[in-house]
């Protein structure tokens, strides 16, 4: 079954938008999964887009004055406010369009931030923007720690992962808490479209962004973005690690339309062990077999919970 999915992905690149909206010459690390995700997101969004980006890796690698890697209109203000800057952009464009001061064309405001700019410091602004119902998309490029400042833990860092502020100590083995479930928080805001995605599944990611782009109202996409530098993994495995996260059920790919959950990329019936996913990542290297077992149980539990939602959830429009 997995094989068919992979084949499907393999033969689709030629169908994908050729135009790039993020130029070469950006300063991202070798094998950066986040900039790959960003590149695909922008392809799906197309030219009629305004991006409000949070401070972070994608900001720093793209816009050292006087140059920019962005080919769509772009604004960066600060770290914690990408969502509300995007909502300001949306309001500005809406008012100017209504008043005939700009072309009468549909331009989407999109907020983009890393996991810190989404789940931690950016949470309040995001919650406000989603609750107010702006016609905007918010994309979280989640690489599971504060990579820009040197790999410090965030609330999106997985359980027991080692970062520079959750080191693998003799007393405390890395991150003490589990990953915050951002998509669930967004669903609780009754955001009409919430999805998870991963650039290792480019077609799935692009389809979801396009869906969100088309929708009138707020939408949220949480993109799992591998960070070879922060995860202490080989650059060339950036795409593979994303695939493993999905195949192990560590990061399932699903979407929630009006409260109705649906798995968009099937996980193999017998999910791979999390140990396979950990193997090439330095941040999990300290884990003992017992600890890996605990992690596996957590993943199994969360996966079961998700499957329950997929089975039982109903659209609030029904």
């Amino acid at each position, binding site marked *: 079954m997995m094989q068919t999915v992979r084949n499907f992905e*393999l033969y689709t690149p030629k169908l994908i938008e050729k135009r*790039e909206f993020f130029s070469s010459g950006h300063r991202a690390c070798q094998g950066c999964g986040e900039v*790959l995700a960003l590149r695909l997101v922008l392809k799906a969004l197309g030219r009629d887009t305004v991006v409000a980006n949070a401070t972070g890796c994608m900001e720093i690698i793209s816009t050292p004055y006087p*140059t920019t890697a962005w080919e769509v209109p772009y604004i960066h203000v600060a770290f914690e406010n990408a969502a509300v800057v995007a909502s300001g952009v949306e309001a500005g464009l809406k008012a100017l369009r209504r008043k005939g001061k700009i072309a009468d064309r549909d331009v989407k405001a999109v907020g983009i931030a890393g996991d810190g700019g989404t789940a931690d410091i950016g949470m309040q602004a995001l919650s406000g923007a989603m609750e107010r119902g702006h016609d905007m998309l918010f994309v979280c490029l989640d690489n599971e720690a504060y990579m820009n400042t040197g790999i410090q833990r965030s609330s999106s860092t997985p359980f027991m992962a080692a970062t520079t502020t959750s080191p693998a100590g003799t007393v405390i083995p890395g991150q003490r808490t589990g990953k915050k479930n951002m998509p669930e928080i967004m669903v609780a805001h009754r955001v009409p479209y919430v999805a998870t995605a991963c650039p290792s599944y*480019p077609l799935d990611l692009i389809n979801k962004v396009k869906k969100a782009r088309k929708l009138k109202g707020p939408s949220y996409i949480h993109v799992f973005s591998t960070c070879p530098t922060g995860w202490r993994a080989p650059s*060339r495995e950036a795409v593979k690690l994303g695939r493993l996260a999905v195949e192990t059920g560590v990061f399932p790919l699903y979407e929630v339309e009006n409260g109705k959950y649906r798995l968009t990329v099937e996980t193999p019936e017998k999910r791979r062990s999390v140990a396979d996913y950990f193997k090439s990542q330095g941040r999990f290297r300290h884990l003992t077999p017992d600890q890996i077992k605990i992690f596996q149980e957590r993943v199994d539990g969360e996966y079961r919970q998700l499957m329950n939602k997929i089975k039982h959830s109903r659209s609030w429009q029904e």
Partner: protein
Amino acid sequence: MKQKKWPEAWHEVTPGCVVFAPGSASTYKTGSWRAQRPVWDNKKCIKCGICYIFCPECCISESADGFFAANLDYCKGCGICEHECWPQAIAMVEEEV
């Protein structure tokens, strides 16, 4: 001789540091970051484009004959294309010192 920077003087700074040239990051050549380069064996290539779609540098493109190649001005040599290439048509080759 050292090349003149732009903007040089304070009055040359654009108001608000707005950049009016989209995609101008491409003036910076990241190819110098590379220790290994990808080399395509077109005999094995099935022209699927997976290398193109997974390139974080947006530097792999399709030529008129349907084969793919990386723009070495930008390729940082991450090796994703080699790792992801299904028919194993790409090899990473050490850059000459």
